[in-house]
């Protein structure tokens, strides 16, 4: 039998559906199509939901370093030309610390810097403090990829505070700066006077042979005032400098990074497409295996 005859014989074959099947299908078709519950379209819903979810995750991941930077402490009191958006400023000279060395003053300064490397910045800031006979009271640093922030509290002898601020300000671009100087000399003088007055009073009580209880109470009060005075002097010996370091925001990393990000996105899409193709080929292969038996 030739192939043409074969095809003709096959073509002439009739395969009518049995009557029971026909009746059953008629009953199915007689159902009101509008009353048939439509299944939830999972595939289109997933086709929309998955890319949207991926975009949201990507946006969160990409925006996080920027958000972290924007959450850094701002310096509202004295900020050299800082815009309200907190954009990076050009390097400027540090503020002069207006303190008087011969008076007892507490000096608290804060400086906010933007620099390329957080770990390097932290290392150099601590080195500045230790080289001026100071120390780092606390260090908190966090990094996300190439972005990050750090908060340091440095204690530096008051006599070296100005030098420390000058050297710290050279570590990066000054974003904000603040110096608070509080004069403690007047209150110390008042305390001195009060102590002198109480000591005179104590001497008089002893001369009058007053009760031991009164003498002890007055002595304790004098000692408390003396302790408070020495504590104020100790505190005033060190200036507290809070240093906030941050890297430039992710969007300011330059066009090269944008191209690199775009290349990564394209590569990711290509990998996804390859995976989809592989899944399709795998499904086709399984289907072929399934249909390869008589």
């Amino acid at each position: 039998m030739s192939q043409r005859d074969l095809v003709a014989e096959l073509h002439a074959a009739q395969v009518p559906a049995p009557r029971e099947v026909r009746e059953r299908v008629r009953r199915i078709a007689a159902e009101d199509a509008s009353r048939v519950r439509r299944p939830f379209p999972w595939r289109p819903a997933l086709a929309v939901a998955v890319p949207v979810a991926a975009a949201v995750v990507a946006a969160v991941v990409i925006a996080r370093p920027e958000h972290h930077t924007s959450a850094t402490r701002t310096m509202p009191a004295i900020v050299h030309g800082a815009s309200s958006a907190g954009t990076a400023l050009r390097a400027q000279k540090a503020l002069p610390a207006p303190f008087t060395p011969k008076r007892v003053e507490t000096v608290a300064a804060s400086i906010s810097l933007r620099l390329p490397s957080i770990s390097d910045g932290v290392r150099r800031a601590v080195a500045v403090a230790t080289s001026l006979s100071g120390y780092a009271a606390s260090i908190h640093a966090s990094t996300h990829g190439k972005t990050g922030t750090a908060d340091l509290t440095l204690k530096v002898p008051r006599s070296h505070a100005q030098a420390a601020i000058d050297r710290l300000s050279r570590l990066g671009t000054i974003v904000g700066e603040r110096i608070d100087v509080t004069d403690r000399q007047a209150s110390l003088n008042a305390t001195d006077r009060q102590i002198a007055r109480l000591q005179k009073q104590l001497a008089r009580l002893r001369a009058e042979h007053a009760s031991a209880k009164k003498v002890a109470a007055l002595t304790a009060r004098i000692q408390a005032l003396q302790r408070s005075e020495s504590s104020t002097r100790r505190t005033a010996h060190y200036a507290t400098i809070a240093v906030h370091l941050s890297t430039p925001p992710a969007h300011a990393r330059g066009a090269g990074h944008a191209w690199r990000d775009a290349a990564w996105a394209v590569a990711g899409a290509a990998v996804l497409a390859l995976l989809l193709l592989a899944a399709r080929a795998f499904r086709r292969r399984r289907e072929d295996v399934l249909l390869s038996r008589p």
Partner: protein
Amino acid sequence: MTFAQAAEEHLDDVYGYLAWFTSDGLAAEELTAVTFERALRLWHRYDPNRGSARTWLCQVARTVALDHFRSERRRTRREQLAAPPEAVEFRFAEGLSPDLESALARLTAGEREVVALRILLDLDVGAASRILGISPTNCTTRLNRALKKLEEALHVAA
């Protein structure tokens, strides 16, 4: 075209396709009913601009048949451990020679499927390849291979 019209018009085609595809009359009857139940639920998706109702119904039938093949394979794997399945006698169509019937039975399901679509249902290569999810060239190759196998089987029988 309403669903009832499409069902009435293409019932024989769908049944014939499923009967040749599965080579099992009882399974084909059941699968035909399942196909039309599913097609009724999905009828709102049918777009006449993208293809004929017959092609669309065959696509639905193919999905139903593949599900059947998968479940059958799992079932036979389990049952073969207990007892080998009995061969079921099936007649592909009235009027076919016994040799051709036997040659058709020796084809794989995939080969019978393409013969059913291209010759029994007389679908063009574009519609058949769309149902099979393969390229038109691949569809033609698959058909030629199936016909050659049939021809060889008939030659041996003669």
